[in-house]
């Protein structure tokens, strides 16, 4: 099978600090990968670099996404190619309504793919269907993007947007952080409903708890900017039980 995403020896820094130090990862279509790791290991940097945040400088390596050199195109083009990032801290944008912004995004994505735009009716039907998936109140979809949303509502809004845009690959950056069990269940339900043989997920998380709800195919441990251990879903349980010191010790050997 042709991989959907292959990251090869990726190196990146922010403000002169090297964060990613030669990271390798391959994700095939339909797979769910989880990346875990202690604070400061580079998890969120990886998400930002893949999504095209220009605060980070890529200093080496390559990323191939479905045959495209990902590092060669900007954030908007990456999204148009089917990459989605659910933000750890969704940004509040006063004055821009959730609906109008998604309409604008979908319009550009459809133009890029050279497919017919949705009619107003089709669009609204889709909004209704996808917001129900994450139990997002209709009022919230009409409000300014994330403005005045609770933490849980912001995360559900991220999943709602993902469902609207139907990416090939979604990166969820600590989507579980700060969520209570109910919100976590709703978010996971949204993600699971979107799993398909073509669509892949990269879950970035600090806690094993999320993986009870979204069961991954592979778990990787990121430590000091490199993937130091990979395994089946059981690896997450082992990490939860033993903590990261065990990895650190193993690394030192």
């Amino acid at each position, binding site marked *: 099978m042709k991989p959907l995403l292959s990251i090869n020896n990726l190196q990146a820094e922010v403000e002169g600090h090297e964060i990613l130090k030669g990271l390798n990862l391959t994700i095939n279509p339909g797979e769910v990968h989880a990346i875990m790791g202690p604070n400061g290991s580079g998890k969120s940097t990886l998400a930002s670099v893949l999504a095209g945040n220009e605060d980070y400088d890529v200093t080496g390596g390559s990323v191939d996404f479905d045959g495209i050199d990902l590092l060669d195109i900007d*954030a908007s083009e990456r999204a148009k190619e089917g990459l989605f990032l659910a933000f750890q801290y969704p940004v509040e944008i006063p004055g821009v309504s959730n609906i109008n912004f998604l309409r604008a995004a979908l319009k550009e994505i459809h133009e890029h793919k050279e497919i017919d735009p949705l009619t107003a009716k089709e669009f609204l039907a889709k909004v209704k269907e996808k917001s129900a998936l994450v139990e997002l109140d209709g009022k919230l979809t009409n409000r300014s993007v994330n403005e005045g949303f609770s933490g849980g509502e912001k995360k559900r809004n991220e999943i709602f947007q993902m469902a609207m845009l139907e990416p090939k690959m979604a990166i969820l950056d600590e989507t579980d952080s700060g969520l209570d069990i109910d919100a976590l269940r709703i978010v996971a339900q949204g993600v699971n409903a979107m799993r398909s043989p073509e669509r892949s997920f990269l879950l970035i998380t600090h806690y094993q708890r999320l993986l009870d709800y979204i069961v991954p195919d592979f778990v990787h441990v990121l430590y000091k900017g490199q993937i130091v251990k990979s395994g089946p879903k059981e690896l997450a349980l082992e990490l939860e039980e033993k903590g990261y010191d065990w990895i650190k010790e193993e690394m030192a050997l």
Partner: protein
Amino acid sequence: MTPVQDHKKAAFLEQFSKDEEVLLASLPHLQASVKDALEELEIPHRRTESWKYTRVNKIINKEWKTGSSNAPSSNSLFPNWEGSRVVLVNGFFREDLSTLKPEDGLVLTSMKDASKQHGEVLGQHCASLSGQKEELFEAHNLAFAKDGLFLHLNKNAALKGSILLENHVSGQRTSAQNRNLIILEQGAQLNMIVAHYGDQEDPIFSNDLSEVFVGENAQFTCDLVQSYQGEEQFAINTIWANQAKNSRFTLSTSTLQGNWVRNNVNVRVSGENCETNLYGTYQLRNKQHVDNHTMIDHKVPHCESNEHYKGILYDQSTGVFNGKVFVREDAQKTNAFQQNGNIVMSDNASMNSKPELEIYADDVKCSHGSTTGQFDEEAVFYLMARGISEQNARELLVKAFVGEVLEKIHHPEVKALFGEEE
């Protein structure tokens, strides 16, 4: 004043004094005080507080000649306007270019005519609000204005549609100083669009002044639009308003283009239970400079004022906002809200924002705020990460930022100038 400044001022004023037929000729009771003011008032300079960030040298040191009323008037921003249209060219009322729809209770004519036919009303009101004793340019306007719009709405008159007033200034080194008088009697209602055009690329100096009397229970709503296209164009736009009780005054000022624009909006709230709304927006590019000075004077209790100005500064543009709100000792239960927000898009652009509240009453609700910041790059990235191109993301955010003020604009025809969908 130094002898140099004295000389400069004399030379500047000299250019205008040759003109005949000024409105002041029919206002003998004002002549002495205007003469004194022109002699005594200084040219505003760096240490003049109200002109601290706006230099007038380029106006004072240049030569100007009075424009012709026959000068061409360029394209309108409102070509499809179907209501009454009043056209002033270089400050002169042009009946032939105007389309006036007669309405009950409306007197609409030139100031020149009004000084003959409505001399008493004009004499009572003209220059009774304005600050010709304090401001050189206001004295200059009163001394040399020859014409303008006279609009009088009788008791309870409500017009069917809005009135569009278009001001064209054109011709090389042309100066225009018109003076408008708008009087709304008790219960009258008036909606206006006032557009200012600096036609073509001519160097011009426009010093425009309007006095607006909003009678008891009357409502005045005006959207002001400024489009001065030329580089060497200087415009001073002054509005003085007085509100009697239970009245409403709403003004929006949209500066679409302007290399040197000074707006003065002064509202005296003289009656109880009034509402005053001032909105403004500016998006400045290149070396444009726009200065919005506002003053709301709450003299009596139970009134409310809302003021919201928002702007975006690109390139090497500069902006000024100075909002003064007085809440006098008797003005208990006043609600006064003021906000000025700016985004500075370039390292070379700058904004000077100064909210000023003077509160002498103790049972009031007043707030003011001023924010000047850079573009929210995180928001740009967020939008891009959803597939929106960088340019569209920035446009969306600019629209969202000024949108709060744009939605307060009364006329859809004016909103449409910003590409807003109706």
